[in-house]
């Protein structure tokens, strides 16, 4: 039987406010345990929550960015359950009336087609603390620094049909939140966490199959693995005539598998009810319009502008606008070198590859836009060849200075002196008499061999176009 995969994602994104959603404690990551937890966060008797307006502003910004209905009246509700890292015994969240209603996000796929993913809702809530199970003999430790950190939970419709689509959406969302400057997107620090609801149904069937919710997916790579593992697991069960149990499953990245955490029967009854300590949040039109004015150029608009202004392909423009820092970097490089296509190739190519290889954030890149743009100018004015540029780029990446310094220090200046190149061409022809004979006898594919030999003799510095031209003349 052919199966159709149905995926919906729930994403918890940490909002980049300075203080917590209901208290004045700081939200900075990495502080000593419990040093950023005030009495509100500790759930002390008599302590009360006071809503951080900045968190509301950020949630509204997200809603506007995805063209969603803004909940002009939203209500905080208590989600009740016991856990040691949940100090009040309830999490303040939103239930029936979220701050952001239905919206959508358009995702451009690798084949350049666009997939629209429906957003069911997005709501504000507070994060819990962290339980630490190592380093405390026979006990667990609790760090409440994270308790009360503002989150926006973004829930999609079950619109995705493969792990690839889910990841494309998650990356798009991730980029969007960073664009909006409402989330730092740091997945290692837990600023962006996804849970995936996965189910299968026979192709053509309208009714959804039973789903499993996969938690603990903390990178895009693991997301793909976790979803694919889950698809295979469910498919095997279904094909063996079994039934899928509705449950929450935990992804274990070490073993690359998902395993059952709790079934529907074991699920908590959270007993949601409106939090009587907080009044309903009623937004004024002027507030929403004020937030709208702070919206940056959004990825989809930017992408279209890149296509129009820089004559980039849809695909290149998508990649370059997926993340705001990358788009800003690209534009800065173009501003320096005025070569949009060349800049796109380098930014998407060697530059991105180097970031990946060294696992670096763009902000920490050793090659800034000025340096890369400067190097592209030197390609354009024939000071260096594209091939030598790779060497130059590596040296810049290693911190050896800007393009001119490196070209000077390493003597990489391109040879454009026809006489000098001619001498090398003659030398190569003289040293490879056999090949010359074969070439002249019709083995024309040997031309590349000669080019290679000349380039090698010039240590890569000869202008490739001139080498071609002169070789053709000599071998004619």
């Amino acid at each position, binding site marked *: 039987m052919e199966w159709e995969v149905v995926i919906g994602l729930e994403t918890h994104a940490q909002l980049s406010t300075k203080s917590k959603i209901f208290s004045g404690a700081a939200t900075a990551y990495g502080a000593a345990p419990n040093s950023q937890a005030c009495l509100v966060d500790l759930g002390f008797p008599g302590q009360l929550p*006071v809503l951080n307006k900045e968190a509301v502003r950020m949630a509204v910004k997200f809603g506007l960015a995805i063209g969603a209905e803004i909940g002009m009246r939203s209500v905080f509700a208590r989600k009740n359950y016991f856990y040691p890292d949940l100090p009040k015994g309830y999490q303040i969240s939103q239930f029936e009336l979220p701050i952001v209603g239905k919206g959508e996000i358009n995702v451009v796929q690798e084949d350049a087609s666009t997939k629209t993913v429906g957003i069911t809702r997005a709501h504000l809530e507070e994060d819990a603390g962290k339980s630490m199970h190592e380093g405390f003999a026979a006990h667990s430790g609790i760090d409440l620094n994270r308790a009360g950190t503002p989150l926006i939970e973004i829930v999609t419709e079950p619109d995705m049909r493969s792990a690839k689509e889910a990841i494309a959406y998650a990356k798009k969302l991730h980029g969007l939140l960073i664009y909006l400057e409402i989330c730092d997107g740091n997945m290692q620090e837990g600023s962006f966490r996804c849970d995936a609801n996965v189910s299968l149904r026979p192709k053509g069937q309208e009714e959804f199959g039973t789903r499993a919710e996969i938690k603990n997916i903390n990178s895009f790579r693991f997301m793909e693995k976790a979803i694919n593992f889950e698809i295979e697991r469910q498919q095997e069960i279904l094909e063996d005539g079994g039934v899928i149990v509705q449950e929450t499953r935990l992804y274990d990245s070490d073993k690359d598998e998902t395993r059952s955490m709790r079934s529907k029967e074991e699920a908590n009854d959270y007993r949601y009810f409106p939090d009587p300590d907080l009044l309903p949040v009623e937004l004024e039109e002027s507030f929403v319009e004020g937030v709208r004015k702070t919206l940056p150029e959004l990825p989809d608009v930017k992408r279209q502008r890149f296509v129009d202004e820089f004559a980039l392909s849809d695909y290149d423009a998508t990649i370059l606008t997926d993340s705001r820092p990358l788009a800003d970097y690209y534009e800065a490089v173009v501003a320096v070198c005025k070569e949009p296509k060349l800049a796109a190739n380098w930014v998407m190519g060697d530059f991105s590859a180097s970031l990946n290889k060294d696992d670096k954030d763009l902000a920490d890149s050793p090659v800034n836009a000025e340096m890369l743009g400067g190097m592209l100018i030197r390609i354009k004015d024939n000071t260096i060849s594209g091939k030598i540029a790779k060497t130059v780029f590596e040296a810049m990446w290693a911190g050896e200075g800007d393009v001119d310094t490196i070209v000077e220090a390493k003597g990489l200046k391109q040879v454009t002196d026809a006489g000098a190149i001619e001498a090398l061409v003659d030398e190569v022809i003289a040293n490879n008499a056999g090949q010359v004979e074969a070439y002249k006898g019709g083995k024309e594919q040997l031309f590349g061999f000669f080019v290679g030999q000349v380039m090698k003799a010039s240590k890569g510095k000869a202008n490739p176009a001139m080498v071609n031209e002169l070789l053709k003349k000599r071998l004619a």
Partner: protein
Amino acid sequence: MHNKSLAELANGLQAREFSSEELTSSLLDRLEEKNSELNAFVTITREEALTQARAADEKIASGDAGPLTGVPIAQKDIFCTKGVKTSCGSKMLDKFISPYDAHVVENCNDAGLVMLGKTNMDEFAMGSSNETSYYGTVKNPWNLDCVPGGSSGGSAAAVAARLVPAATGTDTGGSIRQPASLCGITGIKPTYGRVSRYGMIAFASSLDQGGVFTQNAEDAALMLGVMAGFDTRDSTSLDRPVPNYAATLNDSMAGLKIGLPKEYFSDGLEAGTAAVVQAAIKEYEKLGAEVVEISLPNSALAIPTYYVIAPAECSSNLSRFDGVRYGYRSDNVTDLESLYVNSRSEGFGAEVKRRIMIGTYALSAGYYDAYYIKAQKMRRLISDDFEQAFKKVDVIMGPTAPSPAFKIGAKTDDPVSMYLSDLYTGAVNLAGLPGMSIPAGFDNGLPVGLQLIGNYFDEARLLNVAHQFQQATDFHKKSPSAYA
């Protein structure tokens, strides 16, 4: 000195007739002696009080004093007091020393009031008789075999026995007005949001409101002026100026329209209490007020509504008492579940557990609509009744409680009869209105209170109406003979 009112003591201090230290010391001596039979205090803070009193004397000497500087009071043990045990009447918090002051406590401290101690109360303010306290029942000074009412029973008994001129309280369904009635003193619960809930340990957040017990309305006006005010730390606090409550105490009763809800004078009301209340209304007529019968048709819904909403909120509010971070932790712990189960089973008393269970049930999937949502709708109907009534009248009057103080143990086995103690008070909390109870007379030697209910933010009028009655009568000046 102990029979003087708050205003009289304040005047005496300002006139240097006695120092705050002398006053504090003398009240502490009497309090320590009498408390052994009344059990009105959980904690007596002698040293801290004397330190505060000396500081007050310095302020008075240097001319920095406010009008109430140096006057001793007591705080209900539901208000967090920095460095002092704040038990909320529970074993759960028997060893809890609060690291901070409640807004009410800050305000009292800023006014120079001297705290003599923390008063006993029903556990987590859940009770109408003070019998659910971990620290034992408080005795009614009018009859030591009777309850003082609850949940603020310690505060009420302390003021009735003249241990302190004023004591704070909280009122979720009648917890100030009912004990004020049973102890023959003046008690006011202001409009919801008038007094900050910051640092007031929550029972039912949408109903809880701080207030005060005093000998008379004038003192209540002075105390409320200190306690009330906007507080950014409580999102339900009202950003409205606090009027000078004392300024309007002498306004005339001529033309005042008093509404008597016919539902408050029916089956549940004892005849002796009804007679006292009717006589008090007659007194108002003599003062020139006009009395009209009104109807609050949904009155009968108040108790069932209250006993869904209050437990629902408390079941969640009390989840934080889990033995993890502070408060009682069972010794009998082997894993996380036993930590929770044993700490909470051992740390909470029976009434608290009963309400947590009722509330948990009411919020559960499948019951939420039938109970919680339904109760919210009923709450709206109850509020609407008052709104209609206040289109016709200025103040609503009736009994505070269906009967005078009952015997200790009389209702402990019958929660429903206990819950009916709030018959006339609970609706006021559901609507968020201000209410008062003032001494109106006696039934078989036990005091009976008259309840005054005002429109939103109409505390000044309630205090005025109460004060005028007290100018014409002397019930508020009577104190139990054993504590004269």
